[in-house]
C-alpha cells in the first residue's frame, strides 16, 4: 500500500482516538475547574485584609474559608489541612450548626466557643462545612444583639460576632 495512504490511515486512527480522549477529558475534568466561590467573595478579601486584625478568626464554609485564608492569611474554622488538627470534625459540625441554626443565640454561642470574630455569609450559593452542601439560615444574623453587618456586596455579607 502506498505510503501516503498509510499516512492518512495512521492520522485518521490517531485523530479519532485523540478526539474521543479529549471529549472524555472535557466532560470529566471541567467540573473540577469550577471556582465554586463567587467573585464578590474574592473582592471581600481585600476589605478583610484592610479592616480586620491579623488574628481575626472566621466562620466560613470550606471553600470560602480557604479563599479567606489564601488571600488574607486569616484562619477559618474549617478548610485547609485537617491532618494534624485537634478536632477537625468537631469544627465541621459546629460550622454546619452555625449556618443551619435558626436561633441567633445558639449560633452566637458556638461562634464565641471557638473565639470566632467574623462570619462570612455567601448570598448566592450554598456552603459546605464538611458534610455536604447546605442552605444558610440567614435571618438570625440580622439580630444586632449578637451579630453586626460590617461589609457586604452582591455575593457575600460579612458579620462581626459581638
Amino acid at each position, binding site marked *: *500500500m*502506498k*505510503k501516503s*495512504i*498509510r*499516512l492518512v*490511515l*495512521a492520522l485518521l*486512527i*490517531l485523530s479519532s*482516538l*485523540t478526539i*474521543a*480522549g*479529549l471529549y*472524555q*477529558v472535557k*466532560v*470529566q*475534568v471541567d467540573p*473540577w*475547574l*469550577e*471556582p*465554586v*466561590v463567587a*467573585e464578590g467573595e*474574592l473582592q471581600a478579601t481585600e476589605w478583610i485584609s484592610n479592616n480586620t486584625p491579623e488574628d481575626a*478568626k472566621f466562620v466560613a464554609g470550606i*471553600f470560602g474559608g*480557604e*479563599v479567606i*485564608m*489564601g*488571600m488574607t*492569611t*486569616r*484562619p*477559618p*474554622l*474549617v*478548610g*485547609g*489541612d*485537617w*491532618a*494534624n*488538627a*485537634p478536632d*477537625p*470534625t468537631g*469544627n465541621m459540625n459546629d460550622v454546619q450548626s452555625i449556618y443551619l441554626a435558626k436561633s441567633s443565640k445558639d449560633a452566637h454561642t458556638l461562634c464565641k466557643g*471557638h473565639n470566632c470574630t467574623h462570619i462570612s455569609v455567601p448570598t448566592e450559593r450554598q456552603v459546605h462545612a464538611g458534610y455536604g452542601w447546605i442552605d444558610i439560615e440567614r435571618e438570625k444574623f440580622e439580630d444586632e444583639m449578637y451579630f453586626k453587618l460590617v461589609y457586604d456586596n452582591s455575593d457575600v455579607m460579612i458579620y462581626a460576632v459581638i
Partner: protein
Amino acid sequence: MEWQSKKPSDLVTNRHFLLLVIITMTVLYRIKTLTGYIIPTFGNTMYHVGIIRETIETSYYPSYELSYGGGFEHFYVPAYRLLITSLSITSGIDPMVLSGIMTIVIAVLIIIVIYSIGYRMGNQYVGLSAALLFILSPELTIFTTRALPELLGLFMLPLTLYFVSRDYRSLAILTAMVTALTHQMTLLALALTLFLYSLMRIRSKEKFLLGFLPLIAACVTYGAWQVYSMGTLNIFGIAQIQYREGTIVGLEIFGRMGIVVILFLIPGLYTFFTDKVKADHRMLLAAWLIATFILTKNDLIFGLIGEKGIFMDRFFTFFVQCAVILGGFGLFYLLNGLDEQLSKVKS
C-alpha cells in the same frame, strides 16, 4: 535493543513538532486556570496559597497552621510552597496568580519527563505515544490543572525514576530528597516503588544501591522534617489515618484513567514485559506499577486487618502515570504492527 531500532516507517517525520503540538494542547486546556477571577479551588488550592502568602509576609515558613482554626503544629512539607514563594518574591507576582502560572509550567514539565521515560525505555515514538496518552487521561488532567503540591510530586516521582533508569545515582538521591519534602503521598508512592525495585535487583549490588540509596535518603529527609515540625516520628495519629474517608478506587474512578489509555494498556503490558526491553527498565516500571496499585487499593490492606475505609485514593494518579508509559508502548506497537501489515498490501 529492539525498541530503539523500530520506527513506524517514517510515517511521522517531525517528532519535535508532534511533541510541541501535545505541549500546546496541554497549555491551551490549562489556560483557563488563569482566565477566571480565581484559580480552581477544588483540592485545597487556596490553603496552599495562604501558607505561601504567610511565608512571604513573615519571611518564615509557618510553624503553626492556619487551617481548622489554626494554632496547632504545621507539618506539611515545604518544597512546593517554597518554590512558589521564592518565585513570587522574585517576580513580584501575587502568589495566587503565580500558582496558576506554575500549574501550567509544571504540567508541561510532567509531559516532558513522561516523554523522556518513554524515549529512554523504548524510543522516541513510544515517548510521543505516552505523552499523547497523558493528555487523554482525565485522571492525570484533573491533578495537573490545579495548584497543588501533588502537581510537583507528579513531576518529581517520574524524574527520580528517570534518573534511576539512567543510573544517575547522585541525581536520583537528590530528587528523592526533594520529593520527600514535596508531598507526603508522592513520597509513599516513590518509597514503595524504590523498595520493590531494590528487592528485584538484590542480586546486583550496584543496581540494588541505585534504588535503595534514594529510598533511604528520602525516608531520612522526611523523618528529619517530621521530627523538626511535629517533634515525633509517629504518623498514625493524623486525620487521614484516623478517619479514612477517602474514596475507594472502584470502576468509576478507574475509568478516569481514560478510555484511550485503558485501550492501549493491555497491549502495552504485553509488549513491554515480553519484548526485548532492558531488564532494568522492565523491573523499574513493574515496581512502579505494582507499588502504586498496592497503594491505590490500600482499602484491601485495611480490610485484611479487619478495618474499614481507605487511607487515601490519590495514589491512583501515580498508577495512571505509569499506565500511560505502558500504554505508549501499546499504541506504538499497534501502529507499528498495522503499518508493517499495510506496507505488505499491494496497491
